[in-house]
């Protein structure tokens, strides 16, 4: 995926899209916080927040894809204004009902207007979420500014890394 290195996650997450050590009574409240942060940064309208909650009601807690991590999202719709992310770390982890990966301490809200325009963001996100050290620092970060600082350091590091080998395809 050649688009991957062009997206900087710190630039995709303004401070209004980040909540640190937030309090949520349950999974619905946690997803709602992620939805409100998407609305605050102009990525979605309020309807999208309800769609993200409905997605879990309909399909189950499959969005908890790694220990402690939920990717709250729904499908492309008129409630999505542009591709974007929000970031909510929780003071007290909450149960989503996922057998393997509960409880959740980090909820990432994700919105995409179609199936393609968010792929650069997804590559950048995949890079951060695969980095266990970075992820534990990010979960402990106690302010939106600190989260953005850590993300910017990762963006900088990844842009200095040599590109993935592509010899097989050239």
């Amino acid at each position: 995926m050649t688009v991957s290195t062009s997206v900087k996650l710190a630039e995709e997450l303004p401070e209004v899209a980040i909540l640190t050590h937030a309090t949520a009574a349950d999974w619905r409240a946690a997803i709602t916080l992620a939805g409100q942060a998407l609305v605050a940064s102009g990525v979605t309208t309020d309807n999208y927040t309800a769609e993200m909650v409905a997605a879990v009601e309909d399909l189950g807690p499959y969005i908890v894809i790694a220990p402690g991590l939920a990717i709250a999202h729904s499908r492309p719709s008129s409630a999505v204004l542009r591709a974007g992310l929000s970031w909510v770390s929780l003071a007290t982890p909450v149960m989503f009902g996922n057998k393997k990966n509960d409880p959740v301490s980090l909820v990432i809200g994700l919105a995409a207007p179609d199936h393609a325009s968010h792929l650069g963001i997804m590559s950048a996100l995949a890079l951060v979420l695969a980095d266990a050290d970075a992820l534990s620092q990010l979960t402990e970060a106690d302010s939106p500014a600190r989260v953005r600082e850590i993300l910017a350091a990762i963006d900088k590091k990844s842009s200095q890394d040599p590109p993935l080998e592509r010899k097989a395809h050239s």
Partner: protein
Amino acid sequence: MKIIAVCGMGIGTSVLLKMNTEKVLRKLGIDADVEAADIGVARGMARDAEIVLTSEDLAAQIGDVSATVIVIDNFFDLVEIEDKLTAAID
């Protein structure tokens, strides 16, 4: 070989699973197409795929398909993906 990564909406978790699966396949030197799909179209797409990757909550909803359905617990555990893929391919 064709592999499908399935999630509820086809834009979020399946895309992350597809990216991590492609990393594992590159490491293993296996040539395969990995496509992300939502649960609604996954059954149809699974007809001409060898392997379907998804989460436990969605595996039951895919139902009876000829492809091997692999449940991934941690989408960022490349070792888990590699072990389960290798076992399915051998």
